[in-house]
């Protein structure tokens, strides 16, 4: 083995950090000045190229010249997820297609996905923030990083891939699924770090145990886990069972993908790469900014995105800005790990799912909307989604084959709509509990 020794040294300052991490330590004065300069530029860019943004600015009698300080950001209109749907597919692009080098897509709230675009410069920025994430997790050249996020339209796989490669690590692009093969690769290739969803890693721990492999005996030493909310107790469990250090990484396609923020080795919140993504916390009801330290909805502005700038994007993720400087020496502000969302979006095996998508799929099959309920459970670390559908007289045919066919059609429609495997259970009319006449749509037993 010709590999550098694995460092457990903390990256403690700009003097011994990875070159890509230098902006993490910018002085606050310089950082704020840079942010203002970039904010002015991105507002100008959106004003010039994105019709929806310009209209909303004009409604408020604002122009790019209205931005004189970072505080002026709060005067700008929000962007919300449905804006991406309403302008599907390319309505929010600020670059001509000839300058767009990549498209990704993720689930929208109904049938159509939302599309995000990158120029080469955007891809380079994305890669650079991923390098900063991974370097902050103590990874470097010589590490073997296995990426088990899905490769494809989902931003997770390719985002982590280019970051790890640019860091100088050896990348194993395993993509999602095939747990036994993942474990074989970790073992045979000597992977030292894993990028995947935390629940998928739980599943791998479990599967490895069944295969008689003790993860603690493997070279694996770090896990960079994201794409879904997870808890501190899950971290403790993962670290105890596998002997690795587990990091929380945050991101969303609308902003760039993974790499908006990440924990450092202090594990005291996630640093936001705020020279690229400016964070605000607002009251989810009123939209008014709240003070640092107060919980609210995270709102992000992309400060340097070219192809698809997002001004004040409502993430629906509830968190707070942690006050005070992190002991790691980074000047970047930190957010608390995401615990919950202000909308009804579910994250299942890293995939965004909205109950409204389930409704759309059921309507497509039946023409009417039966009572239904989404039941989420966790089986050996893997999220399971069951959609229980009440059988109405209109749907009911006196043949087992017809019911099985109905089951298949519902399942196929849901699989198509959600992009994940769903189990459909036909249940008796009135068997789904209703409170005040309204069925509770989601029962989430995953954390139990």
């Amino acid at each position, binding site marked *: 083995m010709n590999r550098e020794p694995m460092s457990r040294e903390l990256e403690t300052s700009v003097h011994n950090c990875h070159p890509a991490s230098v902006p993490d330590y910018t002085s606050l004065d310089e950082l704020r000045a840079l942010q203002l300069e970039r904010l002015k530029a991105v507002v100008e860019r959106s004003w010039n190229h994105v019709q929806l943004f310009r209209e909303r600015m004009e409604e408020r009698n604002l122009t790019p010249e209205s931005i004189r300080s970072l505080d002026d950001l709060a005067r700008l209109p929000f962007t919300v997820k449905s804006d991406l749907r309403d302008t599907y597919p390319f309505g929010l692009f600020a670059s001509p297609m000839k300058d767009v080098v990549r498209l990704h897509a993720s689930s929208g709230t109904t049938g159509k996905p939302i599309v995000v675009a990158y120029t080469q410069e955007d891809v380079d920025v994305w890669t650079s923030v991923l390098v900063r994430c991974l370097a902050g997790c103590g990874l470097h050249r010589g590490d073997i990083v296995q990426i088990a996020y899905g490769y494809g339209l989902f931003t997770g796989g390719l985002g982590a891939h280019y970051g790890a490669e640019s860091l100088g690590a050896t990348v194993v692009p395993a993509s999602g699924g095939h747990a036994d093969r993942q474990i074989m690769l970790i073992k045979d290739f000597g992977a030292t770090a894993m990028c995947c969803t935390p629940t998928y890693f739980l599943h791998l721990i479990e599967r490895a145990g069944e295969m008689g492999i003790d993860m603690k005996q493997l070279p694996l030493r770090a896990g960079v886990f994201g794409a879904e909310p997870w808890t501190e107790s899950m971290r403790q469990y993962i670290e105890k069972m596998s002997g690795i250090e587990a990091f929380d990484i945050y991101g969303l396609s609308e902003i760039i993908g993974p790499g908006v923020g990440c924990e450092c080795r202090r594990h005291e919140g996630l640093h936001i790469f705020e020279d690229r993504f400016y964070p605000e916390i607002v009251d989810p009801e009123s939209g008014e900014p709240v003070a640092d330290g107060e919980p609210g909805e995270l709102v992000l502005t992309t400060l340097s995105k070219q192809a698809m700038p997002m001004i004040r994007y409502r993430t629906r993720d509830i968190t707070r800005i942690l006050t005070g400087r992190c002991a790691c020496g980074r000047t970047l502000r930190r957010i608390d790990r995401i615990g919950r969302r202000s909308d009804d979006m579910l994250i299942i095996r890293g995939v965004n799912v909205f109950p409204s998508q389930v409704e759309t799929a059921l309507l497509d099959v039946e023409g009417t909307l039966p009572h239904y309920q989404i039941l989420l459970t966790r089986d050996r670390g893997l999220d399971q989604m069951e959609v229980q559908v009440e059988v*109405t007289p209109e749907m*009911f045919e*006196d*043949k*087992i084959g017809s*019911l099985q066919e109905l089951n298949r059609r519902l399942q196929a429609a849901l699989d198509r709509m959600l992009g994940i495997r769903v189990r459909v259970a036909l249940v*008796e*009319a009135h068997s789904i509990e209703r409170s005040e006449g309204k069925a509770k749509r989601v029962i989430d037993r995953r954390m139990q």
Partner: protein
Amino acid sequence: MKIKQISLFAENKRGHVAAPVKLLASQGLDIRALFLAETEQYGILRMIVTDWERAAKTLEDGGFTVKVTEVVAVEVSDHPGGLATVLSALDACGLNIEYLYAFPRFRVDRAILIFRFAAPEAAIACLQAAGINVLASEELFR
């Protein structure tokens, strides 16, 4: 000649067949024949009830998912070969059976077969042409 049958959707769980049956009993409705088809998840309870209209309404009002379907009732001799005769006749006519269940008629040494066909009229004609006794509702409930 077609007979009304009540089909009821039930989950394959403890007590889920008992509930509709108890409801019918409480209304004095007599189940003359009954057949349960099941999968791991759910099943269909099929019943021939004397007063099918009242039974269907009672079950619907009770919140059950029911469907009234038309089946064909045939009387055969309750001896070896009784069923085979009927099936041979249907086979000769090229008719498919969707499902079938049987129950004995005590005292008279006869058995009743309940068939569901995709084309019940054709099946009735076929059976009658073969000299098989297709029962009307009144005869079935006699």
